[in-house]
């Protein structure tokens, strides 16, 4: 059983949903990433998504674009990222998921990249531009290393595709809440509510459904949990906080924001 599977099992026994936090590795520097991770853990976050920057992040809004640019300018490299993950892994057993774009893995070679990530302590991958039709080699490499492949679906994904994608997914299924890029504050749309209910019904408990994109406040988390999300993913809101917080207060600020979100994941 993977770390992610274990986490969902543990949460379910406590009648809780998962809070997943996304931060960009190396933004604004690697030390800040360490402090942020410590804050997230103290704040009770269940799974951490670490972003590795790509020069052309087409699924991301301005906040993550900016963080990507800054992280790359700070000189982050794949090797240094893996070292950073190893360092984090020494301190915690929390599930760590890597979110980046297909070319980063493809260019290094799926097998080579995935085994490096596995060794460092990464549990799974989220690639927003990896469609199921193109995923054969990626899936094979990930399965060999027993790493989770978290695919994304959208409110306009057909039932047939959702089933196909759910089959290829492990860890959880990532439902993009809105039509848009990351960090867009649109409020909760009716189509999202419907999508969550439809997807939950369709996968029928075979895999947890995480909801992300545009979720930024405790109120949002509360509503999504109530609608039936098994996990709620918050990203840009953490990056905005990192942007405006001095480094000596980072761990504290992140942990108190995370706590305020986590409080809303109990199923009442």
């Amino acid at each position, binding site marked *: 059983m993977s770390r992610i599977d274990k986490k969902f099992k543990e949460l379910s026994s406590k009648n809780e949903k998962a809070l997943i936090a996304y931060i960009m590795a190396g933004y604004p520097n690697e030390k800040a990433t360490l402090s942020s991770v410590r804050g997230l853990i103290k704040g009770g976050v269940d799974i951490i998504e670490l972003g590795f920057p*790509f*020069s*052309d*992040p*087409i*699924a991301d*809004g301005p906040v993550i*674009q900016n963080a990507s*640019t800054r992280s*790359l300018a700070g000189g982050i*490299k*794949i090797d240094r990222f893996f070292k950073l993950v190893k360092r984090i892994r020494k301190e915690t057993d929390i599930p760590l998921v890597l979110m980046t*774009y*297909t*070319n*980063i*893995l*493809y*260019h*290094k070679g799926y097998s080579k990249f995935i085994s490096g990530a596995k060794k460092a302590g990464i549990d799974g991958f989220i690639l*927003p*531009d*990896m*469609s199921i*039709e*193109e995923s054969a080699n990626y899936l094979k490499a990930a399965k060999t290393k027993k790493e989770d492949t978290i*695919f*994304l*679906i*959208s409110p*306009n*994904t*057909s039932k047939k*595709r959702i089933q196909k*994608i759910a089959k290829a997914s492990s860890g959880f299924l990532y439902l*993009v809440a809105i*039509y*848009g*890029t990351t960090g*867009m504050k649109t409020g909760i749309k009716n189509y999202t509510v419907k999508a969550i209910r439809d997807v939950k019904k369709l996968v029928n408990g075979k895999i947890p459904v995480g909801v992300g994109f545009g979720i930024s406040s405790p109120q949002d988390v509360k509503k999504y949990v109530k609608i039936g999300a098994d996990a709620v993913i918050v990203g840009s809101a953490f990056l905005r906080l990192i942007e405006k917080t001095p480094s000596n207060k980072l761990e504290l600020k992140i942990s108190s924001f995370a706590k305020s979100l986590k409080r809303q994941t109990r199923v009442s």
Partner: protein
Amino acid sequence: MKYPKDGRFGEFGGRYIPETLVPAVEELEESYLKFKNDKNFKKELDYYLREYAGRPTPLYFAKNLTQKIGGAKIYLKREDLLHGGAHKINNTLGQALLAKKMKKKRIIAETGAGQHGVATAMACAALGLKTEVYMGYKDTIRQKLNVFRMNLLGCKVYTVKSGSQTLKDAINEAIRDWITNVKTTYYLLGSAVGPHPYPVMVRDFQSIIGKEIKQQMKRIPDTVIACVGGGSNAIGTFYPLMDTDTEMIGVEAAGQGLKSGYHSATLSAGSKGVLHGMMTYLLQDKEGQIKETHSISAGLDYPGVGPEHSYLKDEKRVKYHSATDAEVIDAFLMLTRTEGILPALESAHAIAEAIKVAKKMKKSESIVVTLSGRGDKDVEVVQDYLEKNVKNR
């Protein structure tokens, strides 16, 4: 490859896109397949190409240039004479008409040099569609005439300040818009790039170039030459001639030289990767990050290339060469002075190659160069270059 069902040219192409866009490209492919052989659609497109855009374009024998070089006969396929001043209108009329059939009300596009943006704005004005265009900040400066033209045509131009502020980033931003407005919006891509079915569809709309060349030449030319950025005028030139034994040469932008690092010669110096929804050759660093490119011509300033070109390169069916900024300026001046034709700097890359190869060929042999656009938009850039490089000339 006639119509690759899975959107693959060998290992290239495909669909590497956010899931939100999957229904949109599926709808697009379905509509395209439905209309591409539809009698009425073809009739309507033919009408606009002929009466509005000015097809067929002449195949001009460049006698003075041929004499000056003293080798093979050089013919120019005059896409620069089309409405708007470039081959781009072939594709925008086709796609805008398709968008209308699909009942899409809002059109978005990216543009580099501004030629595709202008051609989109024109086609959409003619067909009564609302257009918004994304353009890199750097390109809005060096091609500001085209920004003004788009504005005059009633098209909103968004300046893109992310990344390298050129074509690549304009495409990123257009894709983000498309993800956000996927239900209402048609993305009118300007080159033979992007996720399937764009590379095939754009090729098909541009194939009118090669088809006309075939009809206009008494015998099949020995060599055809076209410039390659994304590669739409080149694939439109080459594709109908694929089953002949014509030598085909695509010319990329070598900028300040392939070794300088300041170039956009993706096929000559790139490696395989995934960008903008496709697997293709890319200019990227050791970590898979996309490199910033350079070319004196904004239209070739792109780190990727159409996936079919990647395939044709690996299959060795087409040769891909490159021309430096300096060679391009020389070619620009030579064509201007010998023939009285100002080529777009993009097209001047193809002229530069023709000058190189014509010398080595027999006088009885023939070359067709696709002159993809006219150079009025570039006079400032050329003037600037000549002033800066006056000592070297």
